[in-house]
């Protein structure tokens, strides 16, 4: 792979990750006058949140919250946005951190692309769309999603037949099949890690079908089904397109589970399952919705009321652990569970669709690049989580959002503000020390002169 080394940019702070936490930290720092660089590995910022339908407990539209922030980041005069880039190495020097970043090739001129999608329309090959968790379709050259920021296409060379149709269709002639990866460096005083999370894989538990039952999906897939921009434009099950009449949620399907090595509670699954149940009730008023749970953890502001509202709307809560999910001859998932509501009783129920409330997992190991170890749970290690939740054990590097541990959107935004403040305080202190040092040197010179 040929890599070209570009120039070094001097910037105050580097934010790694363009999800909701990274965007909030970048905006908070930029609003204070700091120059911020944001590096995002995907072709668009927005993170997981831009793919969600609505937030709990207010049921506000996720896109309506995220899109203005994405736009604000892209247009802020103090933010330098680098999408489709990955941090390769971080070296500490006397001025802070020198970060080497790899710009992956989009195979087009990003400055010239207008995001018109003419290339996408003429591309002959259909591919599974990762933004829709592979339920929807996209093309080998595409704008990642309708509200992507920046609105710039990206070409997937691994699935391109090099027919050249996109090149001919592009009105500004920006396709460049010969583009190569490039390296550039950023010199910054501080780094904020906002690398986010992954969710438990749908195939993690063989008891729950090992990902082979098409009508057993996970919470993020249901988010896409509920979103107005979802793959089908309605709620139908991925196995055969049937509109489900009976939907079940299996809680703790990937959290509080020693067999998966995930002993912690993911903190969001109870609430997103309740939220989705309420949204489904709105879309499919006749559908029966059952939530199989061990405990409902409704700890945030307004969360308990939200849970009670779901009960009042007719969502059935069954206390018990689901042992196994199989399917009948009509692809209907059959849930075998032990109910503990009225003594211990093992039962089986057939549903049209089952949603696994999968938990949050660490997505990125910070040790190789940032030399910051992971905690026992695999998320970024924070030495003093109670008094300094954003401060890592490496001076000048801070962490925010779900990179630090499972948390919901509200907590991510709060923590992003805190990380920005910690970072600003660090830079301010560094500046003060530099000025004191400079003054001391000047005084020494004056004394020597006298």
């Amino acid at each position, binding site marked *: 792979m040929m890599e070209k080394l570009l120039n070094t940019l001097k910037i105050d702070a580097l934010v790694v990750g363009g999800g909701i936490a990274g965007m909030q930290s970048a905006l908070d720092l930029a609003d204070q006058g700091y120059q911020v660089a944001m590096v995002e590995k995907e072709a668009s910022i927005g993170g997981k949140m831009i793919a969600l339908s609505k937030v709990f407990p207010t049921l506000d539209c996720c896109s309506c919250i995220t899109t203005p922030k994405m736009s604000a980041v892209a247009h802020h005069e103090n933010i330098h946005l680098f999408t489709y880039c990955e941090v390769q190495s971080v070296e500490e020097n006397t001025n802070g951190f020198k970060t080497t970043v790899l710009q992956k090739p989009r195979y087009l001129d990003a400055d010239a692309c207008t995001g018109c999608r003419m290339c996408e*329309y003429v591309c*002959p*090959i*259909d591919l*599974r769309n990762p933004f829709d968790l592979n*339920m*929807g*379709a996209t093309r*080998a050259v595409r704008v990642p999603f309708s509200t992507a920021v920046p609105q710039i296409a990206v070409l997937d*060379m*691994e*699935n*391109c*037949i*090099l027919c*050249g149709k996109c*090149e001919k269709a592009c009105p500004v002639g920006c396709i460049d*099949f*010969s583009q190569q990866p490039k390296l550039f460096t950023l010199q910054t005083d501080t780094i904020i890690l906002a690398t986010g999370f992954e969710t438990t894989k749908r195939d993690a538990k063989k008891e729950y079908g090992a990902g082979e039952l*098409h009508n057993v999906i996970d919470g993020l897939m249901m988010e896409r089904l509920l979103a107005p921009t979802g*793959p*089908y434009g*309605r709620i*139908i099950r*991925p*196995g*055969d*397109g*049937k*509109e489900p*009449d009976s939907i079940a949620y299996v809680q703790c399907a990937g959290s509080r589970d020693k067999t998966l090595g995930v002993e912690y509670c993911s903190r969001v699954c109870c609430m997103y399952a309740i939220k989705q149940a309420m949204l489904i009730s709105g879309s499919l008023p006749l559908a029966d919705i059952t939530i199989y749970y061990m405990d409902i953890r409704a700890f945030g502001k307004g969360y308990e009321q939200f849970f009670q509202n779901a009960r009042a709307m007719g969502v059935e809560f069954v206390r018990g652990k689901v042992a196994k999910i199989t399917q009948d001859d009509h*692809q209907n998932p059959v849930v075998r569970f032990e109910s503990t509501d009225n003594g211990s009783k093992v039962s089986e129920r057939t549903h049209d669709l089952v949603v696994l409330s999968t938990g949050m997992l660490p997505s990125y190991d910070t040790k190789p690049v940032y030399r910051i170890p992971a905690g026992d749970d695999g998320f970024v290690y924070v030495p003093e989580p109670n008094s300094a939740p954003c401060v890592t054990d490496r001076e000048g590097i801070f962490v925010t959002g779900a990179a630090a541990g499972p948390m919901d959107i509200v907590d991510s935004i709060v923590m992003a503000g805190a990380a920005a403040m910690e970072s600003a305080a660090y830079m301010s202190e560094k500046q003060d020390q530099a000025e004191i040092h400079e003054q001391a040197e000047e005084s020494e010179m004056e004394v020597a002169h006298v």
Partner: protein
Amino acid sequence: MNKKVEARARAEKMKQLRKEHKVTVKRTQGLLKEQKRIHRDICLTIRDTPKTIPEIAEVMEMPSHEVLWHITALKKYDVVAEEGMCGEYVLYTRAEEEA
């Protein structure tokens, strides 16, 4: 004249690129051929009468989840359209072609 030279240079460049990405191109060409065949068969199946996913899957002898994915792709790029419901299933038909 210039256009001719440009077109020739472009063709030569594409030829070179195809050579460099030989393995990928061969794999994706196979995928595209298969996809075109499936899309043609789906369009033939629903040309006269709108059908549900299980009905299309039965005619094409294909797993219904795969049929749904192809229909989703065809619908996204305006080849197929929804035409009401048949019980719990959506009916799909060929989208009207632009004149």
